């Protein structure tokens, strides 16, 4: 069995009367890009801060690269790069000084530091801003600089908490491309974001968290397949009356929910492809003119809504 690079067992964090995270278990294997998805206050940042050695758990343990995050703090920090969701920069420093400070803080020799800073500035496309003051950088560039700082000691594990939050579309695309690049370099990445379709593009695995509980986790494609068993059909008809349409759809045993949005009937359907064909045939038999009949593609956003609603486990 492959040893997971990130392993969380029964992590619970309680703040006085509030349970931020409740018995969370999670395994992430080497090379995975794991997206942790959940609404605000779900417990994502608490989990990330626990893994980043910044938070002590109420209960539970976690290991990163085999090191205990509570007891082997220095080994964990050496193996992991953490980018917080909200961070500042040291005013008065220039871009290269900022990276030099963090590289020196990880005990990297001056000879290696010089090369690392050059490489990172090139990788993050910050070479032209090398001598600029960090406070003069745009939000997107500051995010990239923080990502560069996270990579400065070449850790095998990256923990990125909302790396694209507050960025414009162009900067978000750049960050997404960077994460793809890091994935191709073999890094294991744990990432959270509110922009779900972006996660769908870069993640191999996802986990859904809400109210401090992990609702579902696993391979992204497998989860989407599961969701697909609860299909959504979109039907546009010409001239049919509302009552007639409701009767026609309601008579079908696979239809679980019907609603009409701007002339398009949206149907929750549990049947397979053959059952879909039968539904279409039954509509035509009743003399309803069907202009459009198709299955909506299930994406991560719908999966998120369905899972957090408790429709899928």
């Amino acid at each position: 069995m492959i040893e997971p690079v990130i392993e969380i067992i029964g992590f619970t964090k309680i703040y006085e009367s509030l349970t931020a995270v409740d018995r969370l278990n999670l395994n992430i294997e080497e090379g995975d890009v794991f997206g942790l998805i959940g609404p605000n206050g779900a417990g994502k940042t608490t989990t990330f801060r626990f893994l980043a050695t910044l938070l002590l758990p109420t209960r539970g343990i976690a290991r990163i690269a085999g090191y205990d995050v509570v007891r082997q703090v220095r080994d964990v920090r050496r193996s992991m790069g953490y980018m917080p969701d909200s961070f500042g920069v040291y005013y008065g420093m220039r871009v290269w000084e900022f990276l030099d400070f963090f590289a020196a803080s990880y005990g990297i020799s001056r000879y290696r530091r010089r090369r690392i800073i050059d490489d990172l500035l090139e990788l993050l496309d910050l070479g032209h801003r090398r001598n600029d003051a960090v406070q003069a950088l745009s939000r997107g560039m500051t995010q990239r600089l923080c990502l560069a700082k996270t990579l400065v000691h070449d850790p095998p594990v990256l923990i990125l908490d909302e790396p694209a939050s507050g960025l414009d579309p162009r900067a978000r695309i750049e960050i997404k491309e960077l994460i793809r690049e890091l994935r191709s370099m073999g890094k294991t990445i744990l990432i959270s974001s509110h922009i779900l379709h972006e996660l769908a593009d870069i993640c191999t695995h996802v986990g859904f968290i809400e109210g401090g509980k992990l609702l579902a986790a696993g391979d992204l494609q497998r989860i989407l397949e599961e969701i697909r068993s609860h299909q959504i059909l979109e039907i546009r008809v010409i001239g049919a009356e509302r009552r007639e349409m409701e009767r026609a759809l309601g008579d079908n045993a696979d239809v679980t929910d019907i609603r009409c949005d701007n002339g398009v009937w949206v149907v929750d359907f549990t049947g397979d492809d053959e059952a879909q064909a039968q539904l279409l045939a039954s509509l035509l038999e009743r003399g309803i003119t069907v202009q459009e009949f198709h299955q909506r593609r299930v994406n991560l956003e719908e999966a998120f809504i369905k899972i957090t609603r408790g429709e899928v486990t």
Partner: protein
Amino acid sequence: MRLRPLRQSPTLAALRRAPGFLVALLHPRNIPTAVGAIRMTLRVLRESARRVWAMGRAVAENPIVTKELGEIFQTRRAVILFALFLGLLGLTIYAAWPRGDLLLSNIDVVARRLVTVVGTTLLALICLLAPAFSAVAITGEKERRCFESLVTSGLSSKGILLGKLIASLVFLVMLIITATPMLSLCLLLGGVSPGELLGMFLLLLEAALGFTVLGLTASCIFERNNAAIGASYIIALPLMAVLLTMAWQGGLFSPGISMELLLVSVVITFFILSIFSRTTVRPRESRPSEEETAWSQRQTGLVLDRDLIPDRWIAPPRRKDLLPDGANPVLSKEIHSELIGQGTLMLRLIIQIGLALAVVPFTLLYFIGAPAWFFSYIAIFALLIAPTFTCGMFTGEHENRTFSLMATTLLRPRQIVMGKFLTGARLVLLLLGILIAPTLPALAYAHLSFIRGFTLGEFILCLVICLLWALALVALGLMWSLISRRTTTALVATYLTGGAILAGPLLIHAVVMSFPALPDAWAGVALPLSPLSHLFAIAPGEMSEVLFPAEGMTVSGGGGGLLFLSGALIATALALGAMTLGHDWVWRRWRGLGEA
């Protein structure tokens, strides 16, 4: 209804024409005029009452007042402050309360002395607390990024400032009110009239108002909490020293002086409120461009030039290459940090004011044969500047949201603590050096020519006492910064503890010596803790026997000075050791609670 100007009033014109006011009222022909005059007076009174009522309602309904009071009174800090305040006051009254034969003889003098002691203690506490509340009133909003929302709300600029002023004042007024029952006890002894007590209350209220306005002014001028607090205390502490000396002499607590000061303080308050409500309370650019900053700094002369000495020592030139292997990254980061490198108004202001005071009045004191005052000034100057540069070193990492970045590196607590301590120590010693250096040749000349009985060894000892006192203050400021969540808390705590160490022992001595009921042995117990008592014990100086008693020292002169040096060194080393060992514990505390 709009009132007619008084000079155009027909009633008044008729009265002027009348042979005499009373005659005019009594004469049947003038009855309508008299009725008119009475009606006009009633109208004026009604209008005035309406305006006062409207103003009162505006203040009572000011959302700033509600918000601020909620913030102040719903925290543990308020309870602790009340408990400390009342505890200290109660202890003072208990210690100074006449006992035995004193209750029968000379009671008037003892009662008056008691009122003076209690009044001075209250005054000191009010003066110390007032800037702490108001200095962060506006800068706090800026740092929380709520300032623009506040200014663009329906509240007027004057309403915002007035709300902040009242909210800061209410807490202090409540402190004064809670002290009333204890203070009333003094009336039982006799010898003090209720009028005198009323005068004292009025003076305390004026002090609260004056020092609150001072803090608010600094808050309007500066952009950051620590700059506003530092500037407030730099002005407030010397002012407080003057006020306390006057109060101690007993000349301040009289109804006459209080009434005169009331008018002055109210006028100054309205003047300042009207100035700043027009100019300062407006949304600004969150951060001016570098060119704009450089221009304004050059215009005001408040800029550090990295290429020139002594600025070069304070703000070292930018690094051109990577850090050498084995160097402490925190030390380098702190030395080149914005506070030191940007040539802040604060830093230059401190240097300018400090130099002006050191070179002129205190060197003169040295020349007239009182060098102890010169060294005392250096010790006080160290107390004023050390917290400004050290109290934000740990809390700043939280406030600037850089804590997570640094905390997840492989930096060891020893590197972090020493990096920050050495930066603070370097800066404070440099500033003290700048303060002392211009006067050294003159001092040496005076020392050789005029001053007898003050050896070179003692001169150096006094200098080293001041420098080690400064180092201990740097460690103290860092400790408060490590255990506090906010820079403002750390600043106020450092000023209070540093001030207590500096002046507390002398005040205790003065209080004990003022009351024959207290055992004399208590007087000198705490004296060795204060550098001031050692400086006055070693160096010659025209000193008050009550305030600076050399004879109260258990070990006097050079021996006591050396003991103080050892104590300061040990205290600094212990503080650094405790910070290094406790650093992770404190972080774990934060880790347990989440980042501030």
